């Protein structure tokens, strides 16, 4: 009898031309699919240009060369980040390897271990500039269908995902993410603290074909407390390149130089 009811519901959904979200994919599967849109599944490098605005005026600009590789064990990305600009920070390096984070200054040859708190500093925080597979550190618990405005002010039919931190490595306590229902492209996300305070909003936009997949080439980050504090992250110079495991350690930092 129960089976009959399910079959009837399924037939009804088909007749209506749509499937309910739960029947197609679980919220976590949608999150995994949206991660795959943002991130290639092989080691790669890119250039990230960050432009920061306050009260409508450009107040800061920096350029980073980023090399990322997924951890063969956990699946989360590890990254080497090297400053190209501004000049005062040129060639400084940050290694992101889970909670093992190191800063290296080639002028002083000093390697300094960073705490996860330091990953959060700044609006486009250190944690935002590197590649992240959300599905590795978060659990999507609900998906509801909703129309929303994307970064190009177009209305998109999306899954609105409720996402909670599931590991200690998660940077945010909770995320609400809108994922395009047809393409699983991430559209926008709101990031919240433990207390439920909105920390930032991110729009994923300017989709272009990268390594054969349409991927966002720009993220616009809006501060939760000061909405006129805006950071634009533009990705360019994508390149498929090997990032050997041996590079992802403190002792390699003095040796690293992007090709």
């Amino acid at each position: 009898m129960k089976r009959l009811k399910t079959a009837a519901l399924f037939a009804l959904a088909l007749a209506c031309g749509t499937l309910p979200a739960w029947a197609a994919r679980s919220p976590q599967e949608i999150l995994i699919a949206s991660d795959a849109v943002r991130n290639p599944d092989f080691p790669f490098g890119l250039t990230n240009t960050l432009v920061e605005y306050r009260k409508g005026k450009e107040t800061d600009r920096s350029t980073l060369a980023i090399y990322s590789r997924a951890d063969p064990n956990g699946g989360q990305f590890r990254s080497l980040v090297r400053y190209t600009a501004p000049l005062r920070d040129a060639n400084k390096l940050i290694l992101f390897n889970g909670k093992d984070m190191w800063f290296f200054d080639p002028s002083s040859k000093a390697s300094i271990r960073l705490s996860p708190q330091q990953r959060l500093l700044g609006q486009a925080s250190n944690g935002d500039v590197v590649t992240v597979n959300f599905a590795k550190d978060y659990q999507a618990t609900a998906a509801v269908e909703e129309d929303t405005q994307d970064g190009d002010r177009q209305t998109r039919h999306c899954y609105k995902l409720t996402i909670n931190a599931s590991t200690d490595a998660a940077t945010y306590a909770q995320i609400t993410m809108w994922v395009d229902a047809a393409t699983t492209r991430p559209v926008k996300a709101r990031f919240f603290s433990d207390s439920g305070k909105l920390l930032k909003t991110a729009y994923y936009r300017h989709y272009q074909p990268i390594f054969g997949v349409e991927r966002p080439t720009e993220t616009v980050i809006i501060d939760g407390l000061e909405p006129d504090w805006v950071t634009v992250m533009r990705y360019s110079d994508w390149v498929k390149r090997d990032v050997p495991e041996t590079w992802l350690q403190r002792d390699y930092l003095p040796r690293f130089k992007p090709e």
Partner: protein
Amino acid sequence: MSPSRLPRLALAAIALLLARHAWADDDDANALMLADQVDSTVAQRSDWRSFIEGSAGYSHWRNGNNRRDSQRLSLDTQYDHSLSPAWRLFVADRLDIGWPSQNGNPHGINTLKEAYLNWRAQPETLLDAGRVNVRNGVATGYNPTDYFRRGAVRSPVSISPASLKENRQGSVMLRGQQLWDGGSLTALYSPELDDRPSSDGFSLNPGATNYRDRWLLSLSQKISSDYTPQLLFYQEAGRNAQLGFNLTRLINDSTVAYLEWSGGRRQPELAQALQQYQPGCACKAWRNQLATGATYTSPNKQSLTVEYHYNGAALDREQWDALRHGYLPAYAQYRNWTAAAQDSPTQQALFFYASWQDALLQHLDANLMHNVDLADHSRRLWFELRYHPGHVDYVIQWQRNSGEALSHFGAMPEAQSWQAQVRYYF
């Protein structure tokens, strides 16, 4: 509250929520419009990184409350160039021209900090030859495992730990490194090239850092996600080997703790400093040097470092009191020797370092350092404001030394000093 007002309040609350939602949408729309205007220029990587720095300051000296003015002009250049996928050239040089000259040094001092060739023989095998600035250690204010620090600071322009690490010359050496997943082994040999430093400001000055044959082996191995200890084995010709150890650990998401230790059989630093008075001192014993502490970072970009320093080769409280109340030339020679070695003249000290990025104003950094000598209770306080809106850094530094006469910091000729700097990157 009357029941009749409740529906109106509820309506007002709903209206407020809807308005807030509308504001949020407006904020997002404004932000996206701003993002549409971003100039799409991408900065290109350069092999060069240089700056020119001008500085002017004055000091109040202890003797007779004299005031002394000083000026300095510096040019600092780094060049890091890949000659081919396997070969890389690195050169770093600094020129300081100061008025008046300090401590009998010439007005102009050029420090060839580094000049070496790097060869990537295999993806995991690297070799270097030339002058290399090798720096080990995880502490901030004192680094017992920084074995190549002696004689390296030729032109001290600031007492900040970052400046002392940056403005120093490397040692000529051959260095090899083998990397593997989660670890590495480094071996280096640095030969004796001269037995004393040069007083010529434009000399390559090999005697300052290549005064004896030296070897270093260092091994790092990740043993868990949070532990990657480093072990070091260091030896100078004619001296006993010294062992070293570095370890860091996360205490919580805001705090990193660390331990740096070096130990081995050696003479006390006083015997080494006064060798001309006491040749062949039979006073070798196992001596430990240690720096341990933690750095806490707040969500507001403030961080505080607290460290304890122990130098078992230096003088304890009684020995230090005896020396500074005894024969003055011996005291002066000991102070000069420990200063060149970047060691404390006494055994125990505390170190505090606080920094605040974007302090009240974007691009304004405030840094505060405090040293306390636990043997004679002398102190040093240093404060810096650094404003860096673009290519230019504007800096103000203040320093005060206090303590009894001939104490660690009380013996510094400057009781208080100010310095203003402008640095331009190009």
